[in-house]
Structures are given as C-alpha cells and as structure tokens.
C-alpha cells in the first residue's frame, strides 16, 4: 500500500465532513457576546459534576450582594497540611506531597482488568484500596471500596446508537461486578452517597441557555444493593446544575461549574467580561442564594483564582489554576486560599494543561 492509498484509506475511515457554514458565525457570537464558559473535559471526569453544566442567568446590577467571604490570600507554601494528593498531569498520574510540593509519578498506576464506563485509565486514587481506579470521584461508593460504572449495549455501541444502558456496581477488592439497573435512556452518575446512586439524563447542553431549560428531565436514585430505582423530581437537584441569581449580580458574566465541595454543593467559577478589568468569583451555595465565596476579587489580581478543577476532602478544597500550572491552591473556610508550589512536573504535550489536576482526596 502506498502513501496515496493510505491517505485515501484514512479519509474514508474517518469520513470527510464539511464544516457547516454557520460555524464561523457561531464562533464569532461566542467570542463577542457574554456566554457561559465551558468546563474542561478533565473536570467532567475528575469531579463530581460530570458534564459541563452551564446556565446563563438574566442578572442585573453592578455588584454582588451579601454572603461574602473576603478575597483569598496566598502564601508561598502550605506547611501544616501534610498529605499526598493524587493528581493527573497530562496522561500520567501521581502524587504531590503537600508539605514539600514535590510531585512523584506513580509508576505502578494501572487499571488493567477493571471495568470502566468510557475511559480505561487511572482517574481516581482510592486510599482505602491503595490503587488507582478508572472512575470519577462522583461514582465512588461512600466507603471507597466500590464504584459505579455504565455499560452501553450492545458492546461497542455509543451514546448515539446504544440500545440499553446498564448501571453496574464493581466491588474492587472481591472483583465482584453487580448489574444494578437497566434503562433505555443515556444517563450520567452525579454522586453516590448514603442515599444511593444519583443518576440523570445529561443536561441539555444544546438547549436554550437558562438553568431550568437545561435541567435533565429525568432523575433516579438507585439503591446500590438492590438496584431499585426511584424517580426523582428534577427540581430537587437544581443546585447541581444551576445557581440562584441574586439582585445586584452583574450582567456581563461567564461561568462554569468546576467541582463539588465535601457536602456535594456545586462550586461555580465566574468572571466578568468587561474590558479594562472585571472580576473573578468562585463560590458554592449552601442553599438557594446562600453563597460561600472561595474567591471574590479583581480578575487581574495576582492572587485571583481561575480554577480548572476542584477536589474536596476533609482538609478543604484543592484547585488547579489556569493562571499558574506550577501551583495547587488550597482553600479552607476561615483560612482562605493558600498555595502549594509544585516541583518535579513532567513535560506534557503542547496544548495540554501542564499543571497537576487534583483527582482524589488527599491522604
């Protein structure tokens, strides 16, 4: 086979799809109008919010009101929290010693033989099991010994052509896989807590840009032992995919969800698009309209937090930050934001975020 034939084969194998003529206009619109910011895909896997959940709120007024924690401050090192933080960097995984900031690749990381939903790679480190799993934090059982995974049937099918979707529970130590629930709609796992495994249809990312319009239509709570599925009201989980606009919020904002706190509250990252400055906010809601601010300050401030992903644990919340890949940021209520300067980072492919992304609780 010569090169010309191989190229033809590649084109045939992939298919030639022309760009739709409306795409340039869509790009222009997104660039020039205030729009929600997309959640990085890594977050979708690593954090509890598994899909980009974007909401455009019709917000008015110049500034945010009330429920404000002062803007975070940073110190060069994080001395008093001494643990190993599992992280992903490019295509590899390892640990950051939070006392020294030293990153060490986990040479033994492997998920061979473990079932997975969509990507067979180490994604979550279970300190209980002392191994990496092909799971997200949202799909881990409360005891850290099992994870939920989704199987589309027939095998090899995709979201576009599957016939049935199964929710499985895999107990790692015993290697026991249990089929819990079968449905004909595509679904995602939001969390697994003592109430059960919360799943829903994905939010409609192509729908009109408002929280309610993007709400997943169907939610179920699946018993992790019996597999019994109970239909849930969509409104009871609105805080997972939207937040409450407040009077006084600015109009010109972009925002995304970046993870969840230890209690499962979605963490939101917002920034204003105004020229000549603007603001960054990172917060979560403990109840509709009750915001706890992790960072609120000028967009261009040196200490501003621009999170890529968040991982909550018993010490607080760990963030990777678009602004500085050499730093992992840690937030604790009452203490605020502090930095861990990370050393020993490997080189990554150009275009890949070169910093450490927290994947699992520090241990």
């Amino acid at each position, binding site marked *: 086979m010569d090169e010309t034939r191989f190229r033809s084969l590649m084109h045939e*194998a992939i298919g030639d799809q022309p760009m739709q003529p409306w795409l*340039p206009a869509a790009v222009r619109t*997104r660039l020039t109008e205030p729009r929600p910011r997309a959640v990085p895909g890594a977050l*979708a896997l690593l954090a509890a919010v598994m899909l980009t959940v974007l909401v455009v709120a019709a917000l008015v007024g110049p500034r945010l009101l009330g429920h404000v924690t002062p803007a975070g401050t940073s110190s060069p090192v994080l001395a008093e929290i001494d643990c190993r933080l599992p992280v992903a960097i490019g295509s590899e995984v390892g640990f950051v010693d939070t006392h020294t900031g030293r990153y060490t690749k986990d040479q033994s990381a492997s998920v061979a033989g473990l079932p997975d939903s969509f990507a067979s790679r180490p994604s979550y480190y279970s300190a209980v099991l002392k191994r990496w799993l092909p799971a997200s934090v949202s799909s881990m059982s409360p005891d850290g010994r099992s994870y939920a995974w989704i199987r589309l049937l027939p095998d090899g099918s995709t979201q576009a052509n599957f016939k049935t979707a199964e929710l499985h529970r895999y107990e790692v130590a015993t290697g026991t896989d249990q089929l819990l629930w079968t449905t004909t709609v595509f679904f995602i796992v939001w969390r697994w807590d003592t109430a059960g495994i919360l799943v829903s249809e*994905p939010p409609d990312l192509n729908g009109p840009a408002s929280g309610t319009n993007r709400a997943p239509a169907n939610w179920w709570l699946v018993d992790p032992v019996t597999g019994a599925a109970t239909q849930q009201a969509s409104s009871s989980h609105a805080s997972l995919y939207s937040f409450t606009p407040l009077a006084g919020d600015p109009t010109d904002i972009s925002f995304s969800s970046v993870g969840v706190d230890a209690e499962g509250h979605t963490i939101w990252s917002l920034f204003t698009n105004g020229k000549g400055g603007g603001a960054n906010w990172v917060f979560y809601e403990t109840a509709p309209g009750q915001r706890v601010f992790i960072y609120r300050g000028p967009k261009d401030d040196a200490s501003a937090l621009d999170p890529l992903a968040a991982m909550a644990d018993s010490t607080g919340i760990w963030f990777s930050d678009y602004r500085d890949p050499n730093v992992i940021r840690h937030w604790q209520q009452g203490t605020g934001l502090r930095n861990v300067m990370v050393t020993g980072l490997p080189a990554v492919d150009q275009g890949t975020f070169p910093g450490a992304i927290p994947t699992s609780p520090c241990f």
Partner: protein
Amino acid sequence: MIEADAHPALLALDDEVAFANSIEPLLPIAFRLAYGMLRNRDDAEDAVQEAAMKAWRKRATFRPGAEPRPWFLTIVANECKMARRRPGWVLFGQRSPQERESASGIEAGDLERLRWALSRLDRKHQLVLVLRFYLDLSNEEVGRTLGISAATARVRVHRAIQRLRPVIEVPEDLGDG
C-alpha cells in the same frame, strides 16, 4: 486539502471582534481536525467553538510573528482530548452498512481494520496520524502543532504507523515526505 492560513499579522489580539475575524480562516481546518479526532459532527463543532474561546483566553501565549495555525490547532487538539473525556464520547464509532458500501475503491475489509486499529491507538498517536494523513500536514507542520521538531514528528508518525501494522499492512517509509 490545506485551507488558507491566517497571516501572522492578521491575528489580532486586542479585541474579540478582530480576533474572531482573524481566526475565521482557520476554522475549516480546525473543524476537520476536531472531526478527525472526535468523529461526531456535533462534538467537533462544540470543540471548535470551545477552542476559539480558549484561544481568546490564552491569547497571551501566542508569540507575535508566529504562525497562528499551529497555535490554534494545538488548542483545538487539546479541546478534543478534553471532549473525549466526557461521558458518551467514543472515537471512531461504527458506520452504517450503507456508508461502508459507499467507500468507493477501497475494500471494506481495509477500512474496518483501519478503523479498528485507530480506535485502539492512544490519543497521541491518533492525533499525529490525523494531522499527517487526514489533514495532510507536512512533518514540519505536525511538529509545530505538537510543539516538537519535524524530526520528532516524523518519528512519532512512524511509531503510530507501527502500531497500525499488526492490523493493517502499511509500508515502512509512509509519511517520510
């Protein structure tokens, strides 16, 4: 097969409208890259839009005078990696029998084997094959897009091809040109 590039001087970084104008010539090839990696039109369109937004946010990383195309394609490629981590994303999904039959001049067996082999490549090697043999970029352009030298790009192309070889017969010197 290579679309018109934006002239370096035209990559305007000062405001969103000018930036949108200057990257517009890059969108067709960006879409092709995204489609080549994601194999889904909707996902590819989403990836290009997200990449444009990220390019605007990362505009400070663009070196004045550099070629904008490799810079933008790098961001698009990374967006495709991110998109692939979302639930439901599967590379190189099955084609319908009608599509298979319409693959004129090429045996369906080769096509199926190539798709199968591509689907099992890691994303680094998938990307280099898409850049080299689907976007038809030179090794120099592949290197600039991946942030590596042309020689390293050539080696990476070779390694990707070697990984196809157990499944499909391809010559040693493929992609050397």
